[in-house]
């Protein structure tokens, strides 16, 4: 188990396009190790890609912390993206579909939130942004929180 944890827990820099590739590969590998289904792996890796790009483009770079989490017999993966960028003034607006201040189709935050089981964001203008997401390797697909 500690061996598994060693291959999962990590701190990855997010400074360039290539770093996004490493982020995707690491999250994919970690999710596979924890027994995520292919679809769940793909969702989590896609969310990680969206959030890492946000960190890079809007936060001016930062880092990703990857950690294995457990709850009873359930195993999950927690990803924490942090930057010291300008922060987000209006979180509600940023989470709404279609909002974008950079490249992409405006699906970044709101879209990523739909791809994971738990999502939280903490942003202070002028200080930076921390986005934490968690997904669980479920034996059965768990109902996602339906978005309004």
């Amino acid at each position: 188990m500690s061996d598994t944890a060693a291959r999962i827990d990590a701190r990855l820099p997010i400074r360039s396009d290539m770093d996004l590739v490493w982020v995707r590969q690491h999250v994919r590998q970690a999710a596979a190790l924890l027994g995520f289904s292919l679809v769940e792996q793909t969702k989590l890796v896609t969310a990680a890609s969206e959030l890492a790009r946000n960190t890079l483009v809007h936060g001016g770079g930062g880092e990703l912390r990857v950690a294995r989490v457990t709850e009873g017999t359930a195993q999950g993966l927690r990803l924490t993206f942090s930057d010291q960028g300008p922060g987000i003034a209006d979180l509600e607006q940023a989470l709404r579909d279609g909002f974008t201040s950079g490249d992409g189709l405006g699906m970044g935050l709101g879209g990523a939130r739909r791809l994971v089981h738990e999502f939280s964001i903490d942003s202070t203008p002028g200080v930076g942004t921390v986005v934490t997401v968690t997904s669980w390797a479920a034996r059965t697909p768990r109902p996602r929180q339906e978005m309004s």
Partner: protein
Amino acid sequence: MNDGFLSAGTGAVPVLKLGDVLLVTLPGDLHDGLAQQLQQDIGEAITRHRVGGVVIDISGVEIVDSFLGRVLAEIAAGARLLAARTVVAGMRPAVALTLVELGLTLPGLRTALSAEAAIELLGGPGVVRPAGRRREDG
């Protein structure tokens, strides 16, 4: 104007010419810079070789996020301006489910099950009939 690999641009993604169609096979994970380079390369290849169609084979692609989704949509829109039709082929089930969950349904994009089906759809080489399947209009 012979068929075969084109050395268009500096991109690391190979662009193959098959008759009237450009065949582009995306690797499993390509970084943002490479995706943008590819967009340029395809535009240039369409003009240079005057092809009528572009097939982007994404059967090897493990994830499509909003960035790559946007690149695909822009390649198609750009090709349309150059009078070429674009078909995205071979999207994996997990990728399709994720894109839909992400809210990205890419409505303007033509799709096919495989590169072969896409070439057939575009009326590619050696195909006499326009397409194996017909869509109902409306």
